[in-house]
């Protein structure tokens, strides 16, 4: 089996797994990074949303072979040490989370959106398809706008 080398949260990693191994299981089971959650395995719930070279991806549908040399950021790598990302700060201020399971993915989706646009419209926020089964959507919208203002 080939060895795949890439970066996760700034650290260089090398894994020896099959080419089609989904990044999600590489992160969770081979590297012990459990922030990205399994919610569907087919890219529709988006609970595992993380960043690849700064853009939102769903690691459950990204084979590890596509990660060679790339920079992966998971929820664990979003903050700068103890300094939270403005999206995380806004999430706490608006008390967005309920069960919390989808929130790492929601936060990573929001952070990726704010990287693309400084002032997201409601339509752009509507385009985020991450499922929140607790139904925290209104607070997610508020928090994205709060983070946008803070940034």
């Amino acid at each position, binding site marked *: 089996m080939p060895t795949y080398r890439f970066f996760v949260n700034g650290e260089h990693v090398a894994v020896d*797994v*099959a080419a089609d*191994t*989904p990044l999600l*299981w*590489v992160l*969770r*089971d*081979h590297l012990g990074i*459990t*922030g*990205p*959650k*399994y*919610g*569907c*395995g*087919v890219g*529709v*719930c988006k*609970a595992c949303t993380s960043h690849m070279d700064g853009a939102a991806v769903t690691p459950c549908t990204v084979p590890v072979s596509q990660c060679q040399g790339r920079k992966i950021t*998971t*929820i*664990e790598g*979003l*903050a700068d040490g103890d300094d*939270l990302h403005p999206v*995380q700060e806004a*999430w*706490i*201020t608006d*008390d967005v*989370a*309920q*069960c*919390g*399971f*989808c*929130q*790492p993915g929601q*936060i990573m989706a929001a952070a990726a959106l704010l990287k693309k646009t400084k002032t997201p419209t*409601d339509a752009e*926020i*509507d*385009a*985020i*398809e*991450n*499922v*929140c*089964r*607790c*139904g*925290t*959507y*209104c*607070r*997610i*919208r508020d928090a994205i706008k709060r983070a946008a203002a803070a940034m």
Partner: protein
Amino acid sequence: MAGAGDQINRADPPTDRKRGIGRRRFLTFAIAAPTLAVGGYVGYDATDAQALPSLPQPADLLDLGDVITLASRPTAWTMALRVEEDGTVVFELPRAESGQGITTAVAMLIAEELDAKLSDVRVELADATPSLLWNQFTGGSTSMRTLWEPVRQIAAAARGRLVTAAAKRWGVEASVLVTRDSAVVAADGRTLTFAELAVEAATTTSAPVTALPKDAKNYKLVGQPTGRVDARDIVTGKAKYTMDVEVEGALATVVARPPTIRGTVVSVDDTAARAMRGVVAVTRIDTGVAVSATSFDIALKARDALKITWKDGPAVGLSDSTIKNKLRSAVAPLVVPGLLSSALDAEFDFAFVPHAPMEVLGAVADVRSDRAEVWFPCQSPIVAQNEIARAVGLPVDQVTVHVSRAGGSFGRRLFWDPALEAAVVSKKIGKPVRLMWTRADDTKHGRLRPASHHKIRATHMLGDVQAFEHRMAAVETDLEHGFGEIISASGAAVSGPADGSLFFQLSATCPYNFGVVTQLLSEVPMPLPTGSWRSVYSANLRTAEEIVVDELAAKLGRDPVKFRTQMLKSARVKAVLAKVAAEGQWGKAMPAGHAQGVGVHEEYRSATACLVEIDARDPKAPRVTRATIAVDVGLPVNPTGLKAQMMGGLMDAISTILQAGVHIDDGRVRESSYGDFQYARQKHAPIKLDVFVMPPSGRPGGAGELGVPAAAAAVANAYARATRTRPRSFPINF
């Protein structure tokens, strides 16, 4: 309670039920209302002259929450609070935390009574503790109702000991000491922190000062909007769910499941699967074939490499249409003759809905020859512990059940199926396992909110409603998660066996003075996995009724809000309705294809009203654009958490009324994930939502399930007005 609990048309108990033990019957009717109306009644404020008063219903007098509170009380004092030497106050909470925020609300109660800093209080989820009996059950929106008294008293007692210890140290009267910010403070300003007093307080032999919980008017924290205590852990990815628990050597395990519901394995060829690197074991279990491997990617691949011959499950032959026909023929007959001019008849159908919590089901199990340890999120850990012990052949006291945080539940984690599977696999292979259901497993083999059929007849004359008859038939809800034991333990004077009929009787109410009101449930057993789903019978029951209330108002030429206000029994419900009507600008002009809709609900000793605006210009893609909710829970411990519950109830309402459910096709669930089970996304949520929390008016009522029925009714009524249709089958776009 004339007529309450009457059981009619009861067939003989079946003998072929695996665990029914004669408590189940084929078909039951429970009358959740008096059979006769009389002129006087107690317990409600005066009504407007026109409305014909209805008697209080059983659930008005003794509801499910009262029963669970009674059952939990004898062991309430065995809950433990401890102050550690570093000053941390630790409370082991015998409840599940699935996002409803009970750990935060209980931490607030403790901090309030102790005058501790909230950040010094740590609420942990207690392991299954058999001595707690029915004080370790999470359901029926009862956690705050059951914990409110004992938790405050336990914390007040702990404060008493800390003050006594300080008084001894200083040689002063305890009565001159005060507590604040996790410390005891003397009149001269000297302070001793709880950390400094922890050991002495634990060993002090002198009688502690009298410790009564605070008067509500002195609350500093309870009632204040407060963020979740675990918010930072969640937003940084540190919060640990079951599949994140580190248990040395636990093998990733998935189960190949049958194409049909409860199908069984005939034969399996696992040659290819076993040959894969990293596969450790392939195990036949009751529910399928488990594959254990060093990681989930390998376990999933190996599962797909299994060649299995399946036997059809018992639901083959059942489809939505056959189920609907069975339910239609099971509804109890209406009593009042339907005269053309004075009766309004309506029938409704509701589809099956899975719980679909974000965190799929799973459990970690380490079963050895002499003991077992299991980790999973569970609402009924004591029953689960017993079932696991039985399945692996160990004494109950050798089975440790750790309750982990849940990534959502909505009633699903009343059952422990993944823990049983994990324990059995671990025992068979002699290794610890972490067993995970896939999303497709959850959708195709998970439990369902039962489909239901409703027949309603409202009989009116001269602007009054003389009779309101509701006949509901539903696929039987599986309540074998301890409900019966709770009823027994409560000692409550309830009649009839502990089944869905009794549950229905303890929860169903109609909030209106509609003369003779009868609500009857017929449960029809079918070989389908069911379970209590947030608000249980009430969501469908009350949605159907609130639609009829709108149609009655229209028939009588009355405004829906004014009509409700006139007919409602209780001042609390009238107040929340008035609040949403004012704040949500009821009656304002709406463009074509848009409309407002309202709904109210009273249960769990709480009341709520919801007003929504909908844009249904495209009836196939409607959107609720604005929602206004008012909620009265008696005493809102944490208004922030309460608002979150109401928002969640609204999203459940939008989902289940407009677009989300599952189909049964010949004994199989058609859908397989969130790709086709259309739970609401951001684009379905209102842009504007306002939740108004009514001022404190008493003791805490329940909140977790309260929001669903009123919001579901409001969404349905708004859709009906916007599209000028009469929706009868839900979800509408299915």
